[in-house]
């Protein structure tokens, strides 16, 4: 393997390691248990959404509706709890909502053949609107205290670990995972090789919706409320994590571990800048710069 290939394959992991070392030296509080669990809690949502997003982007698509799905699934889950549903069924309802919206996305992408960017952009508006309409723009509160334990540090870390382990296994160890890469790598070739490309895409958008639905339930648990504004701009954070993690926006190349590293690279960057009291505005600028750098690296490697 050439130095260039090595660098481009592992760039995000090297960058993440360097970032951690620099912060550990520059800001000793970075290494505290408190800060550590803080980073974990804050970044588990975007990471879980980004795991689903990785599937969509690997096929050469995208799902911009995930942020709105977070809101709607959270709101519906919260409302179910308020109406006395047991926690497990309310959570299931949140996940089903996410999968349902993903299914609609996938059906439009595969049958009407509208580009995913447009389909999911439209769905982002529709679903956000639905979340506001359902709650009348109010916050749904008064959830059972037990529901809040779902998003405690340890539980959240476990959920995230399971999501990524499962994503890895599906992508790397099942025929479906290979089909995802093949669909993104050369759709026509995949189809002529007997891959039912439409089914692959359908499943991919359902997975994306499931990830967002799960994140929505966790966000509701964290807020202990159903909040129709939840998850705003999450779609962009997720895309950023995937791209920073080295997955090509053209599809066919990338890895789920890259996405995990990408999500935490951005999260830790925010955390570090916070520790240094850098303003939120400057943080946005920094995030944008990182995204540009990652996208440029993607051009360079291909």
């Amino acid at each position, binding site marked *: 393997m050439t130095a260039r290939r090595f660098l481009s394959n592992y760039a995000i992991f090297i960058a993440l390691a360097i970032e951690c070392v620099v912060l550990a030296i520059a800001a000793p509080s970075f290494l505290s248990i408190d800060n550590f669990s803080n980073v974990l809690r804050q970044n588990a949502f975007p990471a879980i959404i980004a795991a689903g997003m990785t599937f969509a982007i690997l096929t050469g698509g995208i799902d911009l509706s995930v942020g709105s799905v977070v809101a709607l699934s959270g709101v519906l889950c919260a409302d179910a709890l308020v109406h006395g549903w047991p926690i497990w069924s309310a959570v299931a309802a949140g996940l089903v909502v996410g999968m349902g919206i993903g299914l609609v996305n996938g059906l439009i992408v595969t049958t009407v053949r509208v580009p995913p960017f447009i389909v999911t952009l439209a769905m982002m508006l529709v679903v956000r609107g639905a979340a506001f309409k359902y709650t009348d723009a109010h916050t749904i509160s008064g959830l059972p205290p037990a529901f809040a334990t779902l998003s405690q540090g340890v539980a959240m870390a476990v959920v995230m670990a399971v999501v990524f382990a499962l994503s890895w296994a599906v992508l790397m160890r099942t025929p479906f995972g290979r089909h995802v890469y093949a669909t993104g790598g050369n759709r*026509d070739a995949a189809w002529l090789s007997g891959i039912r490309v439409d089914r692959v895409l359908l499943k991919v958008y359902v997975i994306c919706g499931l990830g967002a639905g799960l994140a929505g339930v966790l966000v509701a648990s964290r807020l202990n409320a159903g909040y129709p504004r939840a998850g705003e701009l999450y779609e962009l954070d997720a895309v950023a994590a995937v791209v920073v993690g080295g997955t090509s926006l053209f599809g*066919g190349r990338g890895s789920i571990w890259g996405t995990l590293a990408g999500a935490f690279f951005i999260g830790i960057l925010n955390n570090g800048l916070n520790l240094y009291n850098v303003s939120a505005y400057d943080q946005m600028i920094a995030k944008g710069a990182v995204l540009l750098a990652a996208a440029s690296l993607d051009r360079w490697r291909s």
Partner: protein
Amino acid sequence: MPLLAATGLTKSYGGVRVLDGVDVTVERGEVHALVGENGAGKSTLIKILGGAVRPDAGRVTLNGAPLPVGDPLDVRRRGVSVVYQEFTLVPGLSVADNVFLGRERGRPFLRRADMTREAQAVLDELGGGIEASALVGQLSVAHQQMVEIARALVGEATVLIFDEPSASLSGREVDRLMAAIHRLRARGLGIIYISHRFEEVFALADRVTVLRDGRRVETRPAAGLDRRQLIHWMVGRDVSEEFPVRQIAPGRTMLEVRGLSAPPRFHDVSLSVRAGEIVGIAGLVGAGRSSAALAMLGALRSHGAIAIDGLPARFRSPADAIRHGVVYVTEDRKGRGILPLMPASQNLTLASLDRYQRRGWLSATAEAYAAADAARQCDVRAASLDQPAATLSGGNQQKLLLGRFLLTKPSVLILDEPTRGVDVGARAEIYALMNRLCGDGLAIVMISSDLPELLGMSDRVVVMREGRVTGELDRASATPEAVMALATRSAA
């Protein structure tokens, strides 16, 4: 002094020398034909002349002055234009806009009327009755070709280079193109003409240069040359020796197609292939051969009857066809064949992944074993099967595709241009593999535009023209003349 002179052009790609010290000249008012097999170096040569590719050694002069290398725009501005095989037109723009693309008149606002008038004048001179204001996307392929030529001419070209301009044209359209080229020659242009069709070469050319394996074999005046002599120089040996004679003992009819139609691409196509038999499909580009193959595969909507091993079948997708033992190896290796970024091993196992899974999980061992096995059977040469498919040579990519589909254990193998862009050595290996597969009882359909190959490999030849089957010839009666007569309108 010749108008255009190239001396000692040499070019290698990844250690393979595709051009080796080639000299070629063209005079004013001359048509110089360039012939050679696929992979002889013709395309590389004209890409160098057109400035699209930088040679490793050698130089090109125009009127004695050196021509810049590796700068297609500058080369064009100086009067050397290439009409490439793949059109470079923008379908959504008008003919005039395309003709002036990159050289628009008027700054900052376009002078549309001027451009349309000038383009129309050039088009009228070429003949064919094309409106400069028409949208290019709505023109026939032949007319697009004319637009492509017009584009070269408005730049006040002095040298025009044609890369197989007739490949996608029908008989009458070819005649029109030839007439246009005659007129351009009379105007004093120097013309380099690449073609696979000997009739055109003899009708047009003043001189002929033969390339083989990247070297110039001969340059001769066209008068007094005959076809046999040209073929001998091109191939370097007698064509009939190229293909080993296969003893066939055909078995049951494995694929039977009756009245298959998918208007407007093809109509009423019927053919059958028996186990252990190779049936060739001949025809010009655009005759509907690939479309018919895709329809048999369920990749294109069609109607008609298909039977596999005697049982009626109706495939709704390639996945369906593969499950029933019918596979298709595309002519468009890069576009619809390989997955460039995937390792060679995963390219091999792509169509047969279900065979390496247990309860939904892939077995890495089973998969690696299958990949290695297919690579061995098809003689894929790679430093490692982990390397991305894009890094393999054309011949190895082709074998990779063959391996991919053989792993599905097919009973009918449809090969579309199986040796296009494949070097001579790999070709021979692909032929040997086909013969072996045939011996194992596979039924093979081979679409090929390479007539010697088609005639050398096929037990029977089905000829198509403009979407219809125009005849079927057995091995004894399948001569190049007989096939071409059925494939072209002029002789029908």
